[in-house]
C-alpha cells in the first residue's frame, strides 16, 4: 500500500511473461497500433501522436522536455512538491532558462497565481505536475490548458501518478504525457496511470 511501485494486476504480470516477438513482426506492429489507440482512450484524447517512451516516468518527462525545449527557451515551473523540483532539474539540464514559483508542500496554486506568472515570465513552455505523490495533493488543471493555448505557451503536465486515479480535465491543445510502463492499471497505467 505504498505510493509506487505497487502490486501489478496479475493480467499485467502474465502479459509480461509472454514470448517476445520481433519488432517488425506484423503481430507486434499491430500491437503497437492497438496500444496507441488504447492510450488515446486512457488520455481521452484524439492526439495522433500518442505513444510510449520506454523507461520509468522520468524517461517520458525528459523526452518531452529535451525534445520541446531549446537551450535558452524560457520555461515556467510551478513547484509544490518533489516532482516539481524534478521538472525544474530536467528543464535546466535541457538548457532552458527556468523560472520557478513555489508553494508550501501540501498546498496547490490558485489558477490566478499561475496566470500571473505566465504573464510575468512569458515562457515558451509551462511544466506542471498534476498529482504530486510526494505531498499527496493534485494541482487543478481545468483552466490552465485554455490559458496556455490562448497565449501560445506549450503545456507539459506530469500525470504519472494521477491518470486513471484522480480526475483532471485538460483541453486538447494542452498536452499530456504518460510515460512508464508499468505500475498498474491506475496509477498511470502503465503505469501509474498515471
Amino acid at each position, binding site marked *: *500500500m505504498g505510493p*509506487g511501485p505497487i502490486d501489478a494486476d496479475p493480467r499485467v504480470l502474465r502479459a509480461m511473461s509472454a514470448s517476445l*516477438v520481433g519488432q517488425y513482426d506484423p503481430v507486434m506492429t499491430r500491437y503497437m497500433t492497438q496500444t496507441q489507440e488504447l492510450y488515446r482512450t486512457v488520455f481521452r484524447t484524439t492526439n495522433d501522436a500518442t505513444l510510449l*517512451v520506454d523507461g520509468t516516468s522520468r524517461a517520458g518527462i*525528459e523526452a518531452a522536455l529535451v525534445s520541446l525545449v531549446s537551450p535558452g527557451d524560457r520555461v515556467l515551473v510551478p513547484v509544490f512538491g518533489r516532482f516539481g523540483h524534478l521538472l525544474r532539474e530536467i528543464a535546466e539540464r535541457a538548457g532552458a532558462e527556468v523560472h520557478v514559483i513555489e508553494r508550501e508542500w501540501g498546498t496547490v496554486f490558485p489558477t490566478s497565481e499561475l496566470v500571473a506568472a505566465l504573464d510575468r515570465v512569458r515562457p515558451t513552455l509551462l511544466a506542471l505536475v498534476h498529482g504530486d505523490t510526494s505531498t*499527496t495533493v493534485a494541482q487543478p488543471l481545468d483552466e490552465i490548458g485554455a490559458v496556455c493555448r490562448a497565449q501560445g505557451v506549450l503545456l507539459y503536465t506530469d500525470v504519472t501518478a494521477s491518470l486513471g486515479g484522480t480526475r483532471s480535465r485538460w483541453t486538447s491543445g494542452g498536452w499530456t504525457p504518460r510515460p512508464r510502463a508499468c505500475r498498474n492499471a491506475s496509477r498511470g497505467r502503465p503505469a501509474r496511470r498515471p
Partner: protein
Amino acid sequence: MSLSERAVEVIGRRTSVEAGLRDDPDDGPSPGRDRIRSNYLDLGQILAYWGPQRLNHHTEATSMLYAAHECARLLAEEGLDAAVARHALHGSAMVAGLTALGLTLFGDQTHRMNNVVGVEIPAGIDGEAARAALLRDFAIEIGTSFGPLHGRIWRIGVMGYNARRDTVLTTLAALEHVLRAGGVRVTGGAGVGAAVERYTEAA
C-alpha cells in the same frame, strides 16, 4: 504520452534521422538546426518509429510494451470514469479509517489525490520502525516521505490493483495494531469500522 499537433510541430523542426537510416542526406542534423540533445529520448525519432513510417529507433523493450498494452486494456475495460470513482471510493474509505484511528491527514484536503493519502506520524511513534513492523508482521508496505516531510508523514497508496476494499480494511487493521504496540491510544476496531461505514454509505 500524448502530444498535441503544436508540440509535434515544434519537435519536427528539431529532429533528425540517424546516419545509416537516411533516404535523403538532408534528413541529417544540419548546423543551422537546433538538434535535440538526446538520442534515446528524441521524440522526433520516437514519433517516426510509432508513426506509419515505422522508422527504426531503439530495439523494443518488448515486455514493457506488453505490460503497457495490458494496463491500458484494463483501464479501458473498466472505463476511465469508473476507475476514478473506484479510487475516490477506496481513498475516502482509507481517509475515514485513518481519521477514526485518531490520525491527522496531511495537506489541503480539498485537493487530495484519490489514490494516495498523506497522514501525519503520531507523536511517540518512530515512522520507520512502524513501517518495518507493518511489513514484517503483516506483509504490508506503506510509503515513507521525502525532504521536508521525511519523518513527519506516511504516504498510503490506494492505487490501481491495490484500490480494493480488502486491502483498505486489512491495512487499517494492521496499522491499528502497530499504533497500539507503539503506545498510541486507539479505540479497537475504529479504523475498520469507519471504513466499513463509508462503504455502506456509498453502496
